[in-house]
């Protein structure tokens, strides 16, 4: 039985014929749409390497069956930069050494973009660490990752009050 879905990937609408209902969003991206930026670590929801935004929310793409996503919109690491201009979270990861080998990094960055959009962590490092706990890093670049997310949060929210400003107010 073949199913066809419409999926918007990084802004472009695509018709995708699925010959097999078992294909996960992760495998669809990597193996069929030739977008290997999203990484496979555990394939079981335990590491966060496969994080993408699905209709604007961060999820583990390894646990989403593609067939369920007809009409949805997906943003992957390939869709963050605008041309040569990096997304603020990408830039912050470079500035703060938020990685070593880089394998977990696409997932970390997508998770950070999702976390910042959720707006629950603000600029509290403890809340950022807690909010990023679904992304493991075998190189243990956690310090740089937290600094990067903190910095990106500030860069992306010039209008909102930060704890720093509250203190000095």
């Amino acid at each position, binding site marked *: 039985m073949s199913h066809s879905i419409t999926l918007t990937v990084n802004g472009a609408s695509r018709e995708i014929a699925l010959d097999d*209902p078992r294909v996960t969003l992760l495998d669809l991206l990597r193996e069929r749409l030739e977008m290997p930026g999203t990484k496979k670590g555990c394939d079981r929801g335990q590491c966060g390497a496969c994080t993408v935004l699905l209709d604007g929310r961060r999820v583990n793409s390894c646990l989403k069956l593609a067939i369920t996503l007809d009409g949805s919109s997906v943003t992957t690491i390939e869709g963050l930069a605008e041309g040569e201009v990096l997304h603020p979270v990408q830039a912050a990861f470079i500035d703060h050494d938020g990685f070593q080998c880089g394998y977990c990094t696409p997932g970390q960055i997508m998770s950070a973009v999702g976390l910042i959009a*959720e707006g629950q962590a603000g600029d509290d490092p403890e809340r950022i660490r*807690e909010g990023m*706990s679904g992304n493991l890093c075998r190189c243990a670049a956690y310090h740089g990752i937290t600094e990067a997310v903190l910095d990106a949060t500030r860069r992306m929210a010039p209008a909102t009050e930060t704890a720093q400003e509250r203190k000095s107010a």
Partner: protein
Amino acid sequence: MNRFDYARPASVAEAVAAWEPGAAYLGGGTNLVDLMKVGVLQPARLIDVNRLPDLDAIELTADGGARIGALVRNADLAHDPAFAAAFPMVAEALLAGASGQLRNAATVAGNLMQHTRCPYFQDAHSACNRRQAGAGCAAREGDNQSLAVLGWSDACIATNPSDLAVPLASLDAVVEVEGRNGAREIPFGEFLRLPGETPGKETALEPGELILAVRLPAGAAAFRGNARYLKLRERTSFAFALVSAAAALRMEDGRIAEARLALGSVAARPWRVPEAEALMVGQPPSAELFAQVAAAAMADARPSGDNAHKIELARRTAARALSLAAAGTPARMPALPASPFGEPAHA
């Protein structure tokens, strides 16, 4: 993963009609797809309930109760300001579970239906009575350090892993379901089953019944000022509970007017002991009282293997959770929800 056919019904009636033996409802997929990947679950048909209408609302009722649609995502429930203010320990338990990504996908119904994390249940090659009646229980002679100390049987010593289930049990939630034979309501105390001789029957759902909503009864919000969830884990975040406790007190003039205590990860369902709760009524909160209550709550505990340590751990967790509740619900969700570390742990 086995092949399956895929159905996406447009209504509850269609979903229930699409069910046949071997079929499974698909929510966020974070447990079902995971277990399908390792061959532990092999449904012949997936019935995708994600697009069913009207199952994603959170309604607070004027009588201090609530109705939570089956498809409400764990993250959305935890971050709903009105819900979190009325039922803070439910929000805290949700935020102590899994990860940000998983909570965005996981549904309330799927969370309550999630399967045990017993390592032998998760391994399709091990003997497991819960997966296959009569196969035996590999955990009895195996890695059973984190398994049950209450309510277990010779057939199965697994625990229920849901954090959400623990405060829901303490608040006397009700599960609304619909099946071929119509709609009915299941009190939470009967919803998750102890293993007995039939560990494979994990819940009170009849085959094909679909969860539509979870209700918190009138008055459940009366505990809002003194309600905490405490969860001990092998690491600070993104880990299942070793043991956990939901504690809620209704205070009147410095005394406890009503008290609830449910323990998580000690049995195949959240553990409540009404006699232990009753010890608190009319008393002022104190460490001695809470130690006595914790001992009463764990009175029937006995190790099912190499896990006697969980009994003392659960007692201390219960007593600490009650002390935290007595100190008052924090004005803001702690940075590390339900954690014994970080503020305001030493209230």
